[in-house]
Each structure stands twice: as C-alpha cells, then as structure tokens.
C-alpha cells in the first residue's frame, strides 16, 4: 500500500463480514501494468467509493474484480473464496454484478426485454414474476416497459441498469460512473436507489468522477492514483482530508 499516513477508519476488520477482499492485486493490459498492488475490502451492505484521477486504474480494477482481466499477481476473495481468474459468468453466479460505464443497456430491446435478458443466467421459472416485482420499485420504468430502451433518458437508463441487477439478487454491485451525464436532480434519485440497495443488504463498490457526491454517500472510500491506493477512510474523512481536497477534489468553492 502507500507510504503516506493513511487516515484509516478505526472500524475493526472483522473477518466474518468482509465480503470482497483484494490483497496486493496487480493487473493491466498486454504489457502495460495499470493496477500496481491494490489491497482493499468491501463489507456486506456497505457503500464504498473509489475516486481518483482519470487513468488511475479505477475502471480497470472493477474489470479485474469481475473477471474481464486476470490479475498478474495478488489475490481476490469474495465471501472467503478466491475468484481471481474466474470468468465473468462465474463471478456473476457467485453474486457480483457489474454495471458498466455508459451503454450497457440494449437500445433496440424494450425495457421489459432488457430486464429479462438481465436474468439470463437464472434457471428458475420465476423471472417474469420478479420482473414485475422489480418494475414496482421503478414506476418510471413500469410506465415505459413496452418501449424500446433507446427512448429512455440518461437517468432512466441508469434506473434500468440497476433494476436489471436486482433480478440477480447480487451481494455486491460494482458500479462504474453511476452519475455521468446526469442532471443534479437525477443524481439524487440514483443515489436514493443506491441507498435502497444497501438497505436490502447489497454492498456497492462505486467508481466516481463526481467525487464529492460519491464521498457524501459512501460509508468508506479509497483514493486511487497510478494504480495504487493513496488514501482510505470513511467518506467524511476523505471528503475533508486537506491533502485529498487539494489534489483530487479541485478547489471549487
């Protein structure tokens, strides 16, 4: 980890409720190492934010956890079981969902079809009931369930992606840039849903450029730079840490 004094949260790491744990993970593309020894953990029903400059490796880290990239070194454990090197479908079956940056909905399918496809890996017969139940949680989507997803606004697309995730009853959601391109009001709505998910016992690891907002909502946060963790702490601690403010949050206001 970093040499800097890290304002570590005082919360003790009780081994039993740690859901996801990364230990000294290295990963990258071809011969380009992007993640250079990252250790972090996410507990059950916890909102963890990951912030840092563009190119720091945040999205790459999510891809590594989800199995799109195989770490060159280090361990990734989910619910105590090593998952490094597993393929995305295997990771998905273990209860991790990944909401990608941008366009992961299928614009030519209807809202309902998008949801049903989201449950593709499920083998039980209750998908339709669950789709109906999930739509109850998102009235806007229910109204538009027969419309093609292409007509949804940016905020509604985010809702659809989250709704789709719910069908798989995940234990952890990896969320890449939940609020990119969203109006302030919609940002509040998306984070409202994020809190709902946590209330249902789902943990979230959120990558955000909209750092202040993310930190306000996060239980804990990590600051990533050049593929390493530079700071970690509670959302509040990170938000008010002078060095973080200076270097990562900009000096607006």
């Amino acid at each position, binding site marked *: 980890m970093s040499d800097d004094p890290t304002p570590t949260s005082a919360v003790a790491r009780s081994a039993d409720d740690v859901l996801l744990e990364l230990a000294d993970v290295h990963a990258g593309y071809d011969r380009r190492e992007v993640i250079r020894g990252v250790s972090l953990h996410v507990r059950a029903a916890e909102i963890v934010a990951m912030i840092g400059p563009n190119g720091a490796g945040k999205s790459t880290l999510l891809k590594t956890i989800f199995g799109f990239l195989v770490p060159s070194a280090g361990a990734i454990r989910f619910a105590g079981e090593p998952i490094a090197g597993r393929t995305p479908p295997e990771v998905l079956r273990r209860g991790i969902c990944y909401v990608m940056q941008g366009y992961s909905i299928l614009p030519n399918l209807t809202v309902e079809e998008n949801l049903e496809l989201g449950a593709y890996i499920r083998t039980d017969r209750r998908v339709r009931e669950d789709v109906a139940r999930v739509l109850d949680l998102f009235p806007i989507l229910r109204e538009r369930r027969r419309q093609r997803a292409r007509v949804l606004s940016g905020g509604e697309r985010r809702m659809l992606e989250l709704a789709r995730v719910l069908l798989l009853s995940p234990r952890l959601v990896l969320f890449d840039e939940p609020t990119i391109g969203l109006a302030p009001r919609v940002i509040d709505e998306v984070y409202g849903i994020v809190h709902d998910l946590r209330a249902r016992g789902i943990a979230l690891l959120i990558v955000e450029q909209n750092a202040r907002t993310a930190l306000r909502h996060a239980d804990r946060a990590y600051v990533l730079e050049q593929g390493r963790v530079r700071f970690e702490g509670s959302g509040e601690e990170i938000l008010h840490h002078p060095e973080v403010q200076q*270097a990562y949050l900009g000096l607006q206001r």
Partner: protein
Amino acid sequence: MTRTTRFLLGAGVLSALLPLAVRDSFLHNALILAFLFGTTAQAWNLIGGYAGQISFGHAVFFGLGAYAAAVLLGRYGISPWLSMWAGAAVAVLVSLAIGFPTFRLRRHFFALATLALAEIVRILFLNWPYVGAAVGFYLPLEYRNRPAYLMWDAKPPYYLTALALFLLATLVVWIVDRHRAGVYLRAINQDEDAVEMLGLPTRRYKLYAMALSAALTALAGTVYALYVLYIDPYNVMAGRISLLAVVIALIGGRATVAGPALGALFIVLLSEYTRSWLGGLGAGADFILFGALVMLVSIREPGGLVGLFTRRPAVDVPASEGAGGNPAGPGAGPMRTAPPSAGDAVLRVEGLSKRFGGVQAVRNATLTVRRGEICGLIGPNGAGKTTLFECITGFVRPDAGAVRVDGRAVVGLPPHRIAWADLSRTFQAVRLFGDLTAWENLMCAQEHRREGLWEATVCGHPAPAVMRGRMLLESFGLWGLRDLPSAALSYGQQKLLSLAMAVLRRPALVLLDEPAAGVNPVLVGEIARHIRRLNAEGITFLIIEHNMEFIMALAHRIVFMAGGEIVAEGTPEAIQRNEVVRELYYGR
C-alpha cells in the same frame, strides 16, 4: 524511410532479378499470379482496408481491364499500352456509379451493392456477343513478342510486367499512406460522422479511394488477359477474384502497405503449391490444407501477417493526468472573465422543432449565441439539448425552423459544410479514432475548406496546423503522448484531445457536449482554464453541461431547456435563483 519500406525496396530489386537466377516455370507462373492478385489486393486495400468500405465486387474492375485490352486488341488492333487506360477509365466510371449512391448509406449497403454489381456485370458479359459472350474471347496471337503489345511466349517478360505493376500499386498505396489522405481514410473507417464533423467531406474521399482502387484493379486485369491469352466471364469476372482480393488484404494486414504484398505471396504461392502437391489426391485435399493454413494465420495473427514483422513496442503507461499536480494554477478558481460587450450573433436558431416518433424532442427553440461569449446550455436529461446540437450540426434535420451560423443558413447542408460555415463540436461520449495516434487524430481536424484531393494525397500537414497543433498539445499536457494510439489515452486525456481537435482550426463557434462529464475534479478545473483561454483568443462556446459548479463559473450566460423548450435564460446568478429551474432541475 522505415524498416518496412527499406525491406520492400530490397525485396522489389531482388525479385526483379529472380527470373535470371531461377528458371522454374511453375514458380514463375505462381509469382506472376501473386503479383497480379497482389496488385488487386493492394488496390482493394485502399477502399476496403484504409477507408473500411468492404467491396465484394472487385472482379468487375479486374474483368473490365481484361476485356478492354482483349476486345480493343482483338477487334481493332489497339495496343494494350493504350487500352489498359481505357479499361481503367471505364472501371473508374463504374466505381463512381456504384459508390455515388451507396456511400450515402450505411456501409453494408455498399458491400451488398458491390456484390450485386459483380453478378449483373458478369451476366451482362455472358450474354453480350460483342465481347464473346459465354464462348469467351481469344487474344490474337500474331502480336506476340512485340513489346508494343505486351505479349510474349516466355514467362520472364510477363513476370517483370506483373512485378512492375505490383510495385506501382504499392507505390500508390504508400504515397496515400504517408500523406494526409491515408490518415483521413483510416479515420473514415473508424467513425464517419465524427470525421464529417471535422469538416472533411467523407463521401468525396471514399469515392476517391474507390476510383483509385478500381483503376489499379483494371490494370491488373489487363496484364492478366495478356498473360492467359483467353478470357471469359468465368475466369476474369468470377466471385473468386473478388474474394481473393479481400482474403489477401485481410490475411496480409489491412490498411498497411506491406500487408497485401505478404498476403499475396502467402495465399497465391500456398494455393498454387498445395494444388500441385495434393491436387491429384482428389476430393479437394488441397483446398482443405489451404483453408486450414489460412485459418491458422487468422487465429494467430488477427492483424494480418504484417503483425509478424511489426511488433508493437510495449506502451508506457501515460501518467494519469490531473493527479497531485498544482490544481491551484492561475485561473483555476471560479473567477469568470468579464462578459463580452454584446457582439453580433455567431449562431442564431429560430423556431427550431424536431419530433422523433411520439416524442417532441425540441419544440420551437429560439436561441442566439453572440460572438465572444461562453454560453451554457443546461436542463434535465431528455430536455433536447443534444438533439438541438444534432440539428445545428446537420446530423438531424429539423422539422421546422432555421439555423444561421455566422449569418449563413445551414439547415439541409451536410455536416462538413456546416463545419465549414465555421463551427466545430465535440460529442457526449468521446469519439476519437482509436487506432490513430493522438497526433493523427488532431491533424484530421485541420482546415479542410479549400483542401484538394491531390493536395491531401501528396502533401504533409500544413505548417500552421502543425504549429498550432503542437502548441495545443503542449499546453494540454499531451505532447509527450502524441504518438500513442488515442485508445490508449485515459478518458480525461481523450476529452482534452477532443477539445484540442475542436479548436485546432480556430472556428468561430465551438459546441461542447458535456466537456466535464467523467473527468476528475482537478482536470475539470484545467478544462475550464483552457476554455477561458481559448475564449480570450476569440472563440465562442456553446456548452452543454450537468456539472453546475463548472458551468456556472465558466459561462457568461446560461440557457435552460426542459421538455424540448427553452424555458429560461440569463446570467448564471439569475438562473440559479430562477424558481422554475430550481424545481425542474435541482428538484427543490
């Protein structure tokens, strides 16, 4: 001169001497065919490899070259030295006739059209007595061994002719590759709309590549006819020839100069030798081996055989930008520059409306952007902001209303002409040409208004664009990364690069679609600083943005859109106090 080029020159000289050293008639034949189909593949490479417009009909051009030479010689005794140009000219006309209507459409229509063209022309020739119909056409043998007629008894002269033609085609492709046109064509392959928005007339360049490609292919057809001395639609207009061109170029390496050369040697020699060794076994054993080897290459080297010779060096991690640094640089604060004294209108949108199916995306929008200002355009998702941009820039035709850029009515013009009216834009999700380097991306954004095709083919980038480009990259901290493919840049760097591209030619008006989205807060401050400096240079900005801190500090004036209508406009302070805006946008 790169390694590849030196290698090619050396290979050219050595292969010219080969018939003196090796007197193997089978090898000579195989190489003659390799050169002729290599020429075809090299020609195909221009339109299919560089410009990315896949043609399945190159046999037509090959056949036209063959028939032009055969018929003009057989019927009128005209030397192939003349008739080959006639064949090329006809091929060019046919290529333009097929390209002109289909290049408007999405590219698969072009592919389908070439497929249909090949069938039509083949059937036409099969039933046209003048050219021998299905019987075919024999070339008159009395002209043999007269250099003026390009026909001989022995193979070596054909070998040299075919080699010379192949080198000519390679030279043409090399020239295109090394100059602006090559960069433009590769950019067109990646994202036509984005190229069009840079002011580049994409259809003109596609037609150009297509015509050049057709002409070279016809020349190969001419030499082929003179070599085999008998032609019919089955041997010079067969789908096999079209496919061979495609396969050679793809196996060799598309959009590279050396690819089709390697591909031609590999494919043609392989097919000739497997046929001679295994053809006797019957049951197509040679085809099976040939197919297996081609598959093996495609799997091992998806980029083509050139990949074996040009290993890309490991790319250094670009330093993540906006990190640590000095965020408190000059002008990083929320200080706004003084609003400009009311200038004339750079952009005037009047009563613009656009409906998509049941959704009224933009409703009677009227908006003026004055010279010298930074104008913010905000509003909820789905308010019609991006649709308004699409209408202004010509990607979407409004149902009603007028748009004037610098006083010129632009509705109905293609996007590149609107760009010429002096505006540029960036896209919501960054749309760079990922395979091109950062520098090549930037140079695609140079001024295209008075740029001719010939100039683009033989000239490097003009000095003013190079100087300003360098200045921009240096001030954006991207100069050290200029030779990296833009796909290797971080998202923030890509955003900076697209901003640099939008302002390279100093357009009067720049439309930015969410320049701060997905960018870390420190870099957001830097982007604001760059925009202010460019604004001070005299560039007017209209900016869609959801990052309120950013836009409220940057803009002189804010326009608020909701439900397709322009609901409010005013100074940032007034907009932030506006009740309607507060309710619709902030939700409080």
